[in-house]
Every structure is written in structure tokens, then in C-alpha cells.
């Protein structure tokens, strides 16, 4: 559907209902039909950007302002921001050691958010839960951010799942990414369920005293070589673990 649906009118031109409705549809659903699209407020309900609560002092937290990634958050349908650091007011945290939850708070009449804390994680109408802090009883030990910072690595675009390995084999896996992946991680586990410590495999002991890298990449495949000599660490050679068997799992990103 062409966007925008609405068109300009000239001074004095009577506005038809269709013009108004097209303008409304442009504003509310980017020109799409009601059945085809959420309204913008619903779509942006969970929107946040640049909000990372940090420890400010022994009893206060801050959402720092960064001009290149300024804090933005949608609370109760309102688009809010910060233009300077947003600090928790003093004197709000006390009592025995506990987890305190951190909220961004909307105040009617203001486009800026403030901060509040509570030992309950339940959001109020004009609140968004953004993280928690660990209170020792005398000081804030750390904060945990519940929101994406915008730089989190997304889930792998290719995941081989665990597969059994032994020395003497090359495993060629079609990653289906349509191009050579830019990141490939190879993990080793000692059990099929992958519940053991996952050890990153970058090299193996291919022959006595010979350490070699493991992974090759093409636009269609990832090739991983287990060592050629039984009795050596051909599937995992790490300070964390040595192995000539076990399980591998390959993750890849474009």
C-alpha cells in the first residue's frame, strides 16, 4: 500500500472525510488497514533505548545521559526521554539486604522520566521496570539492566545443535546464511545434553606438539576438523579441558 495515503490540500479547499481518514490512518498505522497493522502506540509500547541503570553512590542509582545514544522510553503510551543524567532521589533505599527493583516513572505534564525503586517488581500504571539493584543493607553492590542496550548479540543465525565427535573426521555443516558468516563459535561439551561446562574450541592438538586451528568458512559451509591422531586432544585443547571425543556445537552469525 502506498504511503502516505493522505495528500496535501490547498488553502480554502474543503476537507473530505476520506482525506481526514487517510491522514488519520497515516498517523496511526503508517497508512495500513486496521486489520493489517498495530497502531503506533501499541507497537512502541515496549520501546526503550539507551537506558542503563548504574550505581551512582552507596544508596543511589543513575541512568546516565549519552548524547550519542540518549535515553528514550515509552511509558503508558507517552514517549519520554532524558536530556541529562537521571538520578534516583536520595533516601529511598534502606533496611536489610534485599533486591530493589528500579522503575522509570512518567509524571503527567512532563516529557522526561524519573526513577523510583521498590522491593516489589510489580509495575504501576506510569512505571516501567528497567532493572534491579542488589542492596547489602548498607550499600548498593551492583545493578542489573533488564532492557536491551541495543548492542546485545542477537541469537545465532545458525545453530548446529550438539553432535558427537571423535578424532579423525572433518565435519562440514551447511549454515544456510547465504554468505560467509562473520562470527563462528565452536563449543565442546562432554555430554550429549550440553550441560557440562561449554568450552570454546579454537584449536586442537593435531599431532604431537602441533597445535592447529579448527574452523574453516565458506559462503555455504562451516568446516571443522577434529585432530587426526587418536590419543591426542583432537576435539578440544584448552586449559579448561582436553578431549579426543565429546560433542561439538557450532553457532554462526552473518
Amino acid at each position, binding site marked *: 500500500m502506498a504511503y502516505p495515503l493522505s495528500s496535501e490540500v490547498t488553502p480554502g479547499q474543503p476537507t473530505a472525510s476520506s482525506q481526514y481518514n487517510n491522514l488519520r490512518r497515516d498517523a496511526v498505522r503508517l497508512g495500513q488497514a486496521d486489520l493489517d497493522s498495530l497502531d503506533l502506540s501499541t507497537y512502541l509500547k515496549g520501546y526503550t533505548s539507551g537506558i542503563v541503570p548504574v550505581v551512582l553512590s552507596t544508596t543511589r542509582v543513575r541512568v546516565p545521559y549519552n548524547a550519542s545514544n540518549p535515553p528514550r522510553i515509552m511509558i503508558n503510551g507517552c514517549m519520554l526521554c532524558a536530556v541529562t543524567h537521571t538520578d534516583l532521589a536520595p533516601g529511598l533505599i534502606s533496611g536489610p539486604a534485599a533486591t530493589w527493583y528500579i522503575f522509570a516513572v512518567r509524571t503527567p505534564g512532563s516529557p522526561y522520566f524519573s526513577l523510583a525503586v521498590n522491593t516489589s517488581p510489580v509495575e504501576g500504571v506510569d512505571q516501567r521496570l528497567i532493572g534491579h539493584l542488589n542492596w547489602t543493607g548498607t550499600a548498593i553492590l551492583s545493578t542489573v539492566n533488564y532492557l536491551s542496550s541495543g548492542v546485545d548479540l542477537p541469537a545465532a543465525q*545458525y545453530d*548446529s*545443535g*550438539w*553432535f*558427537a*565427535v*571423535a*578424532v579423525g*573426521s*572433518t*565435519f*562440514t*555443516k*551447511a*549454515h*544456510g546464511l547465504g554468505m560467509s558468516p562473520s562470527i563462528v563459535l565452536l563449543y565442546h*561439551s*562432554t*555430554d*550429549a*545434553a550440553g550441560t*557440562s561446562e561449554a568450552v570454546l574450541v579454537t584449536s586442537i592438538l593435531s599431532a604431537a606438539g602441533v597445535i592447529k586451528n579448527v574452523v574453516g568458512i565458506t559462503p555455504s*559451509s562451516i568446516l571443522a576438523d577434529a585432530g587426526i591422531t*587418536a*590419543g*591426542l*586432544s583432537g576435539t*578440544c585443547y584448552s586449559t579448561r*579441558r*582436553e*578431549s*579426543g*571425543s*565429546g*560433542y561439538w556445537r557450532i553457532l554462526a552469525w552473518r
Partner: protein
Amino acid sequence: MTFIIRNADGSIKTFAERSDDFVLTPGETIESSPLSFARYAQRFTLSSAERSGETIAAHVGDPVITVEVSCPEQLAVDIDINGTIEHLELAQGKASLALSTEIAGAFVIQPADRKLYSAAGNGTLIVEVVE
């Protein structure tokens, strides 16, 4: 379901939960088993002191190393120890081996019949005895 990749000689190269991403080399074949991945992995396992899928290190003179063999629902199984085949009678699918630590070297223990049991996964145990 578990997918089994066999080498050209029929021995099991690997087994996995998914099969659509394997690129087979000439002679390799793929087949499926109705067993779950975890269950298939338990068909034949080797461990020592509850450690499996990793190299076991020991020093010369350490106490004898006991290797546990598990092959559920079987009465016997043949084991390959550094190329020598040993026949083990199983009790309730289990048996154990004792390895000497008198001299330095590596023990590579695998199933003798690699068409039936996989050496990959928990099917190989390497015990390295060093000075």
C-alpha cells in the same frame, strides 16, 4: 529422533539431533534412529570416576585407573584398547576395566565394533599417563 552419519566403511562417524545441515562426503550415508539424542548417546559410553567425553590425565605410579563401560541391555561387548580387542561380559549392562599407570603412555579405548557403536561422543575415552 537421532540422525546417524556413517563413514564409507560403514562405521559411525557422528550422530546428531538435526540432519539438514550435514554435508556428506562421497561414500558417507545418513540414517535415522527413533531413539532420542540423549538415549542414543547412552547406547555405549566409557567413563572414569564419572568423567566422560574428555581426556583423563594420570601420573606414573598413580593408583590403577578404573574405566566404566556401559552398554545397556547387552550381555557382552568388545572393547578396543590401543588396537587390542578385549571381550567384556556385562552385568546389568555394565563392566569395568583396570588400567595400569606403571608406564607413561596413552590408552585409547573405543568400541571394537564401530558399525554398531559410535566412537564419537562418549564412546571414546583417552587416558593419558605422564611422568
